[in-house]
């Protein structure tokens, strides 16, 4: 086989269409996505308080969305976003202080964040819906 015909086996650049993102990249993306979701959620929280200051009928309208299926799903997603952003934010603060940069540590803290956020969300749902 001539040099020109040899199959090309150069390393590929991490282009998004051909590159499987590692866990740490997904966590980074998720941190920003949940941050954006929580920004909207903060406005929703402020709106909730303003509705509570209004009359009972107006508040009941607002509450009826929260207790609907769609409302429950949105609030559940908001709660997961809150717990994930909280846990991963603490992870970021440790990095800012100079700890946990080893790849092994970054993966361990990453999985911890996912597990803790999921558990906190599920426990909140169970207690919140008075299932126990």
């Amino acid at each position, binding site marked *: 086989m001539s040099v020109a015909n040899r199959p090309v086996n150069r390393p590929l650049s991490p282009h998004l269409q051909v590159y499987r993102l590692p866990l740490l990249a997904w966590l980074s993306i998720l941190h*920003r996505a949940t*941050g*954006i979701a*929580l*920004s909207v959620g*903060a*406005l929703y*929280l*402020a*709106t909730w*308080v*303003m509705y*509570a*200051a209004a009359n*009972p009928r107006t*508040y*009941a309208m607002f*509450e009826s969305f929260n*207790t609907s299926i769609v409302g429950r799903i949105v609030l559940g997603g908001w*709660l997961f976003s*809150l*717990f994930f952003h*909280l846990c991963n*934010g*603490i992870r*970021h*603060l440790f990095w*800012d202080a100079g700890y946990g940069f080893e790849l092994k540590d970054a993966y361990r803290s990453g999985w911890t964040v996912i597990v803790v956020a999921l558990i*906190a969300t599920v426990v*909140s749902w169970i*207690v*919140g*819906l*008075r299932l126990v």
Partner: protein
Amino acid sequence: MDRRTPLARARGLGSAKEGVGHWWAQRLTAIALIPLVVWFAISLVMLSGADYATVRAWIGSPLVMILLSLIIAVGLHHAQLGMQVVWEDYTEGGTRVVMIVLTKFIAVLFGLGAIVAILRIGLGA
């Protein structure tokens, strides 16, 4: 190598100028939000399914008035700092300026609205 003109440098458009203040504010609000968010998440779960009167009694108690005002003010400040970075990353030019200004205006508007609402509930106005 610094390729900026002396004028650009003098105007402070570069690293380690205003960006440090933004970075610190984001960390400081993040630290403040850790206990606030834990408190709020637990409170919300406990309040789940509560009626109008119960919610108002909760919001109107002195400690909750303080903590709820804090989490809304600090949370919205943290949110607008983060959203500013998002706009800076994905938009440019006029769109970027408009979106950042809009984000900050909305944050202040909703923050003040919520705090007035808390005071009205708590003080019975």
